[in-house]
């Protein structure tokens, strides 16, 4: 049996973190669920601990999504995990899909698997119109920079093998919205990426990290970050 770690980064999600953890635990009883509490000001940490099934890592200060997720990779790397799955703490990612995310990794077809809500034949949650446009722009940029077509570049629901874990533990983009950047970084450094269809839900509680007034700023930042990652030298991946 391989050991798998499920990384759940969260910031002020005490409304639904419990149900997220319980859902994961019911589908993946053998996996270690690690909640990375990114300096929440609410009861996220206590709520996560109260389940008794999750390991909780409390960051002393708020680092942003990138810093929190990287903490998860550092932890997984320390535990010598074979696989890591990243699930958002807001309940959008159905835990039932974990096994299908892991499949391409176990078959050695990929190092990084992304769950795409747009590949899915059944619609499920597909987000607002303006966000889909933004998604298209990022997708196009991704393809220009890496040659890979990713239908859902902002999806945070992803799985990593040990090779990807060790790489991300050291080089994860420490950015507020690291998902698109992560694709360029991974592709540039020789990690194989595969997308699989997963039906997503609308968030259960809390608010999106990207408000509409911030979306132009977000697009600019993401675009810049992706281009600069492309311009940087390639890192050596330690096996």
């Amino acid at each position, binding site marked *: 049996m391989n050991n798998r770690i499920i990384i759940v980064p969260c910031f002020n999600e005490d409304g639904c973190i419990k149900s997220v953890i319980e859902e994961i635990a019911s589908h993946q009883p053998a996996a270690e669920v690690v909640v*990375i509490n990114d300096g929440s000001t609410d009861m996220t940490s206590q709520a996560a601990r109260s389940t008794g099934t999750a*390991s*909780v*890592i*409390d*960051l*002393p*200060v708020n*680092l942003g999504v990138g*810093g929190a997720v*990287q*903490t998860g990779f*550092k*932890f997984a790397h*320390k535990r010598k995990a074979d696989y890591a799955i990243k699930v958002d703490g807001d309940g959008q990612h159905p835990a039932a899909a974990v096994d299908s995310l892991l499949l391409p990794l176990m078959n050695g077809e990929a190092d990084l698997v992304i769950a795409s809500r747009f590949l899915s034949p059944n619609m499920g949650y597909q987000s607002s119109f303006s966000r889909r446009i933004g998604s298209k722009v990022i997708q196009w940029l991704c393809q220009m920079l890496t040659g890979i077509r990713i239908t859902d570049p902002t999806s945070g629901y992803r799985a990593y093998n040990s090779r990807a874990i060790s790489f991300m533990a050291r080089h994860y983009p*420490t950015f507020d919205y690291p998902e698109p950047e992560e694709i360029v970084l991974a592709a540039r450094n020789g990690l194989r990426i595969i997308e699989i269809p997963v039906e997503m839900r609308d968030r259960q509680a809390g608010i999106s990290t990207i408000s509409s007034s911030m979306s132009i700023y977000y697009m600019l930042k993401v675009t810049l970050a992706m281009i600069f990652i492309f311009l940087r030298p390639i890192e050596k991946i330690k096996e």
Partner: protein
Amino acid sequence: MLAGMEKIQLIAILGSIFFMIGVIELIRRKQIKEAYALLWLIFGTVFVVFSIWKKGLDFIASLVGVYYPPALLFLVMMVAIVLILIQFSVVISRNNDKVKNLAQEIALLKKQIEDENKPGNKN
């Protein structure tokens, strides 16, 4: 030499010397690290030199084709400020990274201690 000196030149000399003394004092008291003070010192020196050696400024201005010599001083000053600000951005970014790594390390260590203190742990 002092007889033919204009009032503004005297102010410039005093001003730039006071500036240099200020920077040196801050370094001496370890309020600025030497590495970061280097740019301040270099440009402070430039200003001291040119406020005393006014002919030098005129000479260099004519050499590079600046018709109004004090404009050269402004240019040098702006270049200095931009360089120093870039240096600040670099230092801040580096510090951000260090703070991030420290915070992650603390969080991971706290977790490790928690695990070790848990009753019935295998270690």
